[in-house]
Structure formats: C-alpha cells, structure tokens
C-alpha cells in the first residue's frame, strides 16, 4: 500500500518536471530569437559608424564600395583631422562643462525637492509633486521661445552658461519625479528610527536617505547626464559661435557644409561623442539595477 502511494506521485512528478523543462526550453529559444533580432537591429548603426569612421574620405565617397566593410585599409585620419583641424575639442570641453554643471544643479535641486515632497508631508505636497511632473510634459520645442527671452534678458545668449541655466528645466522635473518615487519607497520607520537616534532632517537626508536611495540617484544622474549631453534644440536656438558651441549642434554645423557631408568625420565625431555616455552606462548600470534597500526592513 505504502509503495503504491509513493510510486504514483513520483511518476506524476517526473512528467510534470519534463513538461516544465520543455516549456522553459521553448521560452528560452523564443527569447533568444527576439534578443538576436533586436541586437542586430540596434547594433547596426554603431557598427556602421565605426566602419565609416575608419575609412578614408576617398573610400567613403566611392559609391561602388561595400559600406559595411573597410576595403582599402583601416585609417585613423578622420579622428586626426577631427581633433586637429576642427573645433571638435572645444565643443567637447563645452559639453563636459555644461553637463557636469547641469547634473550637479539637477541632483541638488531634485534630491532636496523630492525629499521635501516625498517624505515631509505638508499641505499641497501631492499637488506640487504632480505639478512638477506636468512641467516635464511641456516639450523643449515650445519652451525655447519664452526661454529665449529670459536667456537674452540675462545676457546669456550665445554663452554655454545659458545652457547650464536652461537644461535643468528639462532635467529637474523628471529627476524630482524619479526621486520622489524612490524616497517614498523607503520605509517610514527608517526616518522615525533616525529621528529617535537624534538626526535632524538634513542629517537624515545626507546620512540615511541619499545612501539608501543611491540606485534612484544614479538613475536620475544618468537621465540628467543623457539629457544635457544630447540636448539639441536649446543649443541650436541659443548658441551660434563656435567657441560656445556644444557637441550635438557643433559637430553637425561644422561638418555639414551645405550639401557637403563629411561622413567620415561625422561618424568619428558621433563615436567620440557617444563614448562618455556609453562608459557611464557600462559602469553604473549594475549599481543602478542592484538596489541597496535589501535588509532595511523585513523581507
């Protein structure tokens, strides 16, 4: 009797687990097929950029050559010319200054705003939080018109410091929104414990909330960095001399002359411009995903 009782579920278990394995295998196959298709789709443009940037002008201009391979030998001429005979390095320096300042301003403003809106309940904090997010929904293609007047009035037209002033209109609302979510997800007992331990609100923010919300802060930092590094409309509207120009607009305006496209240098410039965000994503992505809140409370 007891043998039979054991044997039946054992047989069932084998069948069940085989079916599970088969399901899992199919799920993996389908996932990999889609992953490969997407990887090819998204890796083609950067591959094309790399290949083109390593070609000579003559090979790029030659219509008969295969655009996907370097046929006439690899050359770094495009990079050399880009760095020595154009204002590319000035654009790069300006972009770095603008981006670092914007990220710093954004993070200070949005962390403080999010802490106040997310944790220190006060009358109207909910409406204010929603209002901040709504400002993010106004596109920069509309905002640049009134902002033009403001930047002009401040004497910052054709100055990259004007960008330091206007980019936060794009970055602060969204970063504040991200940080509000993060701060709200931190158990309220942590601030209560900190209050009882003797922390003031600023100590609580600096010593508890910022370290615990680091994944959120990194996410917001990446967003602010990407937005200010890749902004196009504002520099296009507010900057017009080469010494003040940033990478996005500068590369395009200096390397496209009428209907003459310097494809090799354009691709080389795009590659160099894409490198910092790539490096930042590569280094911070794990940290960004990991999350530090495990163990704060039960679970």
């Amino acid at each position: 009797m007891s043998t039979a009782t054991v044997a039946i579920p054992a047989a069932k278990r084998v069948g069940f687990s085989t079916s599970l394995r088969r399901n899992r295998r199919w799920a993996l196959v389908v996932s990999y097929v889609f992953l490969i298709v997407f990887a090819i789709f998204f890796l083609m443009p950067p591959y094309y950029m790399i290949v083109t940037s390593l070609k000579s002008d003559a090979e790029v201009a030659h219509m008969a050559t295969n655009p996907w391979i370097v046929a006439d030998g690899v050359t770094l001429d495009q990079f050399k010319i880009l760095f020595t005979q154009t204002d590319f390095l000035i654009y790069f320096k300006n972009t770095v200054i603008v981006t670092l300042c914007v990220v710093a301003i954004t993070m200070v403003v949005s962390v403080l705003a999010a802490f106040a809106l997310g944790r220190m309940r006060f009358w109207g904090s909910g409406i204010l939080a929603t209002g901040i997010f709504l400002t993010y929904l106004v596109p920069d293609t509309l905002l640049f018109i009134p902002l033009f007047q403001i930047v002009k009035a401040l004497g910052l037209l054709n100055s990259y410091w004007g960008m330091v002033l206007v980019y936060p209109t794009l970055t602060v609302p969204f970063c504040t929104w991200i940080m509000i979510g993060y701060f709200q997800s931190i158990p309220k007992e942590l601030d209560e414990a900190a209050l009882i331990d003797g922390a003031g609100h600023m100590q609580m923010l600096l010593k508890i909330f910022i370290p615990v919300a680091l994944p959120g802060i990194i996410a917001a930092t990446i967003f602010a960095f990407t937005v200010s590094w890749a902004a196009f409309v504002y520099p296009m509207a507010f900057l017009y001399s080469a010494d003040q120009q940033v990478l996005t607009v500068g590369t395009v305006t200096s390397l496209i002359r009428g209907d003459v496209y310097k494809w090799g240098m354009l691709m080389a410039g795009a590659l160099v411009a894409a490198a910092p965000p790539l490096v930042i994503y590569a280094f911070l992505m794990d940290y960004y995903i990991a999350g530090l809140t495990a163990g704060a409370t039960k679970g």
Partner: protein
Amino acid sequence: MAEVTLRNVVKSFGDVEAVRSINLDIPDNEFVVLVGPSGCGKSTTLRMIAGLEEVTSGDISIGGEVINDLPPKDRDIAMVFQNYALYPHMTAFENMSFGLKLRKFPKNEIRQRVEHAAHILDITELLDRRPKALSGGQRQRVAMGRAIVRNPKVFLFDEPLSNLDAKLRVQMRTEIKRVHQKVKTTTVYVTHDQVEAMTLADRVVVMNHGRIEQIGTPQELYHQPRTRFVAGFIGSPAMNFVPCQLEQNSAGMLVRVDDKIALPVPTDRSARYQPFIGKPVTLGLRPEHITEPRHNGRNDGSDFAVTLDVVEPLGMETMVFFTVNGTEICGRVEPSSAVDAGATMRLHANVDHMHLIDPASGVVI
C-alpha cells in the same frame, strides 16, 4: 528616575478618536505591555510617547517632565520597530553607534557601549555585517542593540516579534525578558499577542477602542478580569461565554445554563450576585476550568454530561468541544480520559473560577 505618566491623553486623526483620554502611570524600571486588538490605539499611544505622533490633548511626562512638545531625540527614549528599521547601508556596528555619533560621544565610549550591548545580545560576531546578511532574529537583536547602547530612560518596543516565525518569537521573547533583567529600564512594549503580554510584562494594559479596559499584573488579568473583553482577550484558548440565568433555591444559588446543567455558585459570591437573581447573565469559564471530574465521585452539582462535537488531541492535553444552549464550549481534559467525538463524556466545571458578566454593560459582576 524614569517613570512615564500619561494624563488624559487623547489622539484624534480628523474625526476619528484613536486614543480616548487614557491615564497611565508606569513606575521606574517597570516592564509594561500595551495589548489589544488591531486598531485599539496601543501603537498610537506608544508613538505619542516616542514623539512620532503629536498629542491632541493631555500630557505625557517622563521622569516628571512634560514632554509633549519635545522632539523625539530630546526625550531620551529608544525604540525598537516591528520591521527592525535598520539602516541598510550601515553595518550592525554602524547601526548601533549611529545615535551615539550624532550625539558626539567619544569614539572610545561608542566602541565600548556597542561592544557591551553586542555582548549582552550575543551578536559580537555580527558587528561587521550589513542587515541584508543577517537573519530576522539577528536583525531584531541589532535593533535592540541600537536601543541599548543609548542607555535611554525608556525603551519602547512596537510589536518587535511580529515578523518572526513562531519558534524564533518564543526565543526572542525570552531574550527580551533576559535583557530587561540585565538592563533595568522602564519599558513600554506593544503587542497584539496576549501570550507575549502575559509572559513579558510586570503589568499589562489591555486596550480596546482607544480606551484602557484594565491595567494589572498578568495574574490579575487572568484571574480577575473586569470586563468581558478582558476576560475573552486574555487566555488561550479564549474563555467560554454562555448565556444563562441566576436562580436561587433551597440549596443555594445556581447558574442555570440549560434544563440539565445548573452550576452551584460558591457561597462567598452569593451576596455579590444577589441583585442579578432571575436576570439573564453570561457565564464565563476558561477551557482549563472545564475538565474531567477530579473529585473522586463527590459531585457538588458541577458535573454534567455532554456529547462531544470535536476532540483535538494536543499531546499533553486534549481539547474537547461541545454545544450547550446553542453555544460552542471548549474544555481541556487529560488525554487518557478523552472519548471520541460523538460520544458522551462527563465533565466538571470548576465553579471557583467562573465569572458572571452583566450582558448589558459587559462588566464582570
């Protein structure tokens, strides 16, 4: 000295009164447990003592000083939370020393205090670990350590064992009692678990609907509950309540449960029960006071025969369930004397432990 006093303390959330004018005196070094069902106001009371909730009206004082308007950090209290509330980015050592660092204690003293607390709680080896590398019980010990190092006037515990599994809960309960015996400090402990309350407390405060139902030692609450709520809340399994009637005949006073069961009232209670003769009352009798007859055949009228509905053997005892007057009643008998469900069994009600309750007011007569 750190006696805690609550005078006419009220807490309202909008129109809802969570705590309704409570008065409580907790002497220095006493371990007081606030117990009651969810929403009874026990946690709110604790949070008002901690300074995490404002007092709507009334006064809370610690050591004779009214602390209503003091921020939590200036109240000289330490609190252990239900979900530990450990800082996840800090090691156990850093968690425990955080409050001392903020108060600018010298490094040597911080180390000394943390190591002393770690020794008391047996977590010396865990001081370098972060909370995520600790088990639930270890996290709760670190949380207690964080409270101990501060050497506060008052310890506050907000359901600290609720998140632990049953076995660990029993272990940590003993641990908390041991720590209190070592670190004599006034302690206010909130729980909804009456077993925790009974085992830990010097005195238990039973709360219900924002009011204090009764304050007393565990023994007082168990043997002399003042209300039906306290009688039913304290004790596991809960006290049986059966509607009945008080009768007086030539033999004395009787509690008439149904046609067949009429229990004699102990003579020392006759005067107290006199005004209720002929009136409906509720009989309260704990399962442990309904047993197999243990009086060598000398029946004073408190034995009765019932048909058992359910029998639950628990090993060292057996719970028997039967129905009288439409009410299910639970008794506790020796495993050897229990019969099967459906069979008839003679049981004995220990009337010395019975309680009669006025059904109108819910007060024990």
